[in-house]
């Protein structure tokens, strides 16, 4: 007997349930408590975790920048400068290194950072001389600005 269409009284059963549940639970495995095992609780927790991770991408940039700033401030204090003075004088000497690179230099290349701090102190003193002096002394070497 050739059967071309399925009998109408046969209804299909859901056979994929295990894998559909595992798709959600695999993201909840490292959670604490019943939400790493029970599907209903895991659904809610996984959804909240994803929402928080998307929102946190914007915060991560801010957090990392503040981390770099604290590290650069601590490193420049070791050389006798505070963070605003260090950054301001570096920018005035046209050294446009960003905070990420400065923090990495402070950790992995301490001698380079020491020379950068010395550059910033020298530029700071020249700035004080230019502002407080009477204009009779020649302009400082590190205050020269190169326009590209």
């Amino acid at each position, binding site marked *: 007997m050739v059967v071309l269409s399925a009998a109408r009284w046969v209804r299909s059963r859901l056979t994929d349930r295990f894998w559909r549940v595992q798709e959600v639970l695999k993201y909840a495995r490292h959670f604490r408590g019943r939400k790493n095992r029970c599907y209903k609780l895991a659904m809610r927790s996984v959804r909240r975790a994803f929402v928080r991770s998307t929102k946190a991408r914007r915060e991560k940039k801010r957090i990392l920048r503040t981390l770099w700033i604290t590290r650069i401030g601590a*490193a420049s204090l*070791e*050389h006798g400068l505070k963070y605003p003075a260090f950054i301001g004088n570096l920018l005035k000497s046209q050294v446009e290194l960003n905070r990420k690179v400065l923090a990495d230099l*402070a*950790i*992995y*290349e*301490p*001698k*380079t950072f*020491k020379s950068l701090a010395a550059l910033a102190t020298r530029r700071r003193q020249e700035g004080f001389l230019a502002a407080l002096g009477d204009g009779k002394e020649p302009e400082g070497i590190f205050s020269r600005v190169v326009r590209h």
Partner: protein
Amino acid sequence: RYVRQLQRLQFLFSPTAADSRGARQFVEEAAQDFARQHPDVVLYVSPRSGMAPVVRAEYLNGTVREELIASKTSEEIVQLITKMANQSGLDIIRIRKPFHTDNPSIQGQWHPLTNKPSILTVQGPRLQPQ
């Protein structure tokens, strides 16, 4: 010189199942052209009935990747295996950092005694109390 990271491709499908139709058409028509275009990849075709049709790719670093080819047309299978042939065997996960160094520090990593006077670190002959 470029070394292809894909070592071998194993096609495992059944000769009679309905979902292996695309795999069978691929093996009849496009497999030879693919083998000629990629001379450093070895193709193996073996029958496996009762299981879903699968193409298994083995890379030079040892990773084995299996992809289902059930109910795929011959062209789709060709696209899939060209993609696998251009990949390396590294895991397909999120890369945490786009850079890596084995020697991050050249001047010596900072430790709390780098910028302190060396009298604190140097151990010479015992100093006389003055």
